[in-house]
């Protein structure tokens, strides 16, 4: 379980997340809506310890343990799995090289490789010369190699991914990811057609301003735009 309380985060240009309260329960599926630049990605980065952000106030706890002072890899060992909106490419390092870094259950690895169809991508440099869908599939695969990941933070999972890839990814998350908490950000909403979520939040200007059923919020956003969310009667925080 991830528990975020009163989280306020500063970046170079001032406060970028303001008083965020959010709880992700075990096996819960949550979608975060928000326009570009609203703070969704920043929230994930702060949870993972990425970038140069300063936590001014509040706390993030995973299963009761604070993330304060933990390195990125320590956070991964605490069960957090993360896929960025734009994954970094590394020349000369292949997915196979990455596989060599872990002790993992071979059968599970084979299953994940098969489900995600990454056999032909193993000797390619990480995230270089891969399509959007291939990158997301490869990233999910490398996450599957890590033991004890029980929360997936998937930033803009549906951006740059075609329908066929999206269906494949959703199928994988519905099987291999069935025991995990899944938090997805989206600004297009395409993911809603493929995956079912328990709850949705709207992030706007660094604040969480709404919590409700995903379909309900998405309908509201598509009809009235994000600005309408501010004064929305459906807000259920």
């Amino acid at each position, binding site marked *: 379980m991830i528990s975020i309380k009163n989280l306020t985060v500063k970046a170079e240009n001032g406060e970028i997340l303001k008083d965020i309260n959010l709880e992700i329960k075990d096996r819960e599926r949550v979608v975060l809506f928000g326009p570009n630049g609203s703070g969704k990605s920043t929230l994930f980065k702060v949870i993972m310890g990425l970038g140069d952000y300063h936590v001014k106030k509040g706390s993030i706890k995973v299963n009761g343990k604070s993330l304060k002072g933990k390195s990125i890899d320590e956070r991964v*060992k605490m069960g957090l799995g993360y896929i960025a909106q734009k994954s970094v490419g590394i020349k000369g390092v292949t997915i196979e090289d*990455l596989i060599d870094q872990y002790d993992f259950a071979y059968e599970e690895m084979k299953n994940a490789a098969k489900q995600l169809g990454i056999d032909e991508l193993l000797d390619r440099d990480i995230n270089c010369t891969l399509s959007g869908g291939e990158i997301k599939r490869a990233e999910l695969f490398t996450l599957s190699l890590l033991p004890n990941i029980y929360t997936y933070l998937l930033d803009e999972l549906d951006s740059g991914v075609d329908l066929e890839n999206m269906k494949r990814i959703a199928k994988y998350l519905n099987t291999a990811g069935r025991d995990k908490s899944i938090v997805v950000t989206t600004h297009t909403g395409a993911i809603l057609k493929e995956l079912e979520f328990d709850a949705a939040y709207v992030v706007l200007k660094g604040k969480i301003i709404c919590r409700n059923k995903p379909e309900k919020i998405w309908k509201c956003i598509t009809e009235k735009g994000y600005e309408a969310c501010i004064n929305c009667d459906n807000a259920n925080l």
Partner: protein
Amino acid sequence: MMNLEDFLENYSNVGMNPYIVLNDNDSLPTETSTKELQVLDIKSPAVEKFIKGYNLQKNPFKEYTGYLILLSKNSQSAVQTCFLTSQSGFKQNVKNVVIVEDNSELSIFTGCLSSTHVKSNIHNAVTDIFVGRNSIVTFNMIHSWGETSKVFPKLKVYVDEGGVFMSNYVVWEKVQEISSNPEIFVKKGGKAVIQSLVYSHPGSSLNVGGKVFLKGGGSRGEILSSVISKGGNYKTITEIIGNGDKAKGHIECNAVLLGDDGKVETVPLLKAGNSTVQLSHEASIGKISKEEIQYLQTKGLNKDRARELIVKGFVNDSIKEMPSSIQEKIEDIMSNSQGF
């Protein structure tokens, strides 16, 4: 530095025959003379008739060692050579000539080393290589000189029509000084590639570059330099001069800075002699990117492991076009080294 036995053992594994070992300024211990391949001591009287008509660099040495390798037309061969210095302060002078006649293919694999106890040796070399029409010559070099060695090779290569010359030059062990700037002259439809991978250690002074003259129509040239700098001074001055119609050339230099004290300088120079020529260069120098390290941390690796994997990746990417024997060699060295 590797000891002599290990080195010879390692290089024997490349499995090329003949295998020439040239010690100090001694004569070639065994010569090879078959219908296709001649490997002769450079001072052997028989050399004269083979090199007649070839435009060779002046021999500045009084005392020297060296070889003539001659591969007849329509033949294929691989030769392994090794230059050794076994006395401290010794000046080894080398004069080599390689002639590959038309439609042939030759791979030369050279290692250079000094025995563990040898200090302050100097290796001078003057080498001329002639690549015949539609022939392919690959010149592979892995240095393993001592920390106080100084190395000054002067290489000139003439690539005839449709010929290909590739130089793969690897400096991984610490050496005091190297100056290696081959000059390659390429005729119509020919191609020259100079690839180097250099590990610059603290206290080293390394000048590894080259010049390619694209003289013929449709000729192509590439100079690709990769450096990992832990310290010392590294400089690469590279030049491509395109004069032939539709000649194409590219210079690339990538440097990754591991220490705080290493100096890296890259000077690419492109000269186009006519409007059909196409030349380009790109360069990057910098520390390992923080984003790459953080990315690998999100895959559960700690910072040190992440850094190591990224440097290995840089090396792998630098040598991906080199022959597999070199790739395997580098992989061996990396897997035996304690980090970077």
